[in-house]
């Protein structure tokens, strides 16, 4: 059982690396959000495998359910903001978003 925990956490770390890489290198704002989504998937897996390892699987499931609700609302809000930016700027490129400087 302990070994499974190890495999799961390696997977979690890898997925978070993929998400972070996407977040840092993407130019498209929607792709940045996809990176964020990948990272939250990693965290979901981390919660459940932690709960599986220490026996409190029911508690970890309740936490994951709350987390999914929170993440959906924040992704929806972020997508709304991206859409408004695209309406104003006519581009999804983050590098074109340089009005604030200093």
């Amino acid at each position: 059982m302990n070994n499974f925990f190890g495999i799961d956490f390696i997977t979690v770390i890898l997925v978070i690396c993929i998400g972070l890489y996407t977040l840092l290198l993407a130019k498209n704002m929607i792709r940045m959000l996809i990176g964020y989504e990948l990272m939250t998937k990693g965290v979901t897996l981390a919660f459940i495998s932690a709960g599986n390892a220490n026996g409190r699987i029911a508690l970890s499931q309740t936490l994951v359910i709350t987390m999914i609700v929170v993440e959906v609302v924040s992704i929806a809000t972020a997508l709304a903001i991206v859409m408004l930016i695209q309406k104003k700027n006519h581009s999804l490129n983050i590098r074109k978003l340089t009005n604030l400087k200093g």
Partner: protein
Amino acid sequence: MKLHIFILVFLFLIPAVLAAISKYLLRSVIALLVCSVGLTLLLFNLNAPLAGVFELSVCSGLISVLFINIISLTQPLSGDEEVSKVKNHYQRFLALPFLIIFIGIILWFNQDSLFGTLVIQKVSENATVGEILWRTRGLDLIGQVIILLVGVYGIVTLFRRGKSNE
């Protein structure tokens, strides 16, 4: 016995990499959906059916729909232009699979030092998910109510066009 775990992990990881490196956003979103399905299978395998169902319905269902909606709403204005502009797209993301394999190998061979000494006290738990959610996580439920209200008011106020803006 271990093999199916590996298959599930790869079912989760490979779509994740594809979602990151695919050039077209729509394909990325579909890869994300597949990745979510892989995660659901992993969760079922870890005895968490309820969380798995939530993941399947909300993350792979609702979020994919949201993403595809936004892409279809924003692409007509800038689709071809965006794709032609990111010529060096694959160059930037080429390093990703190798990096992931590299980190994976390092972690795999060091997992004894990371997780081997781990002492996890097993707690036996009798309550079901519903009991825990309603009896002990009351504050989280209030938080969920607040965040749903935030979502509703936020989206409504962001998209409401006032008279002065027209």
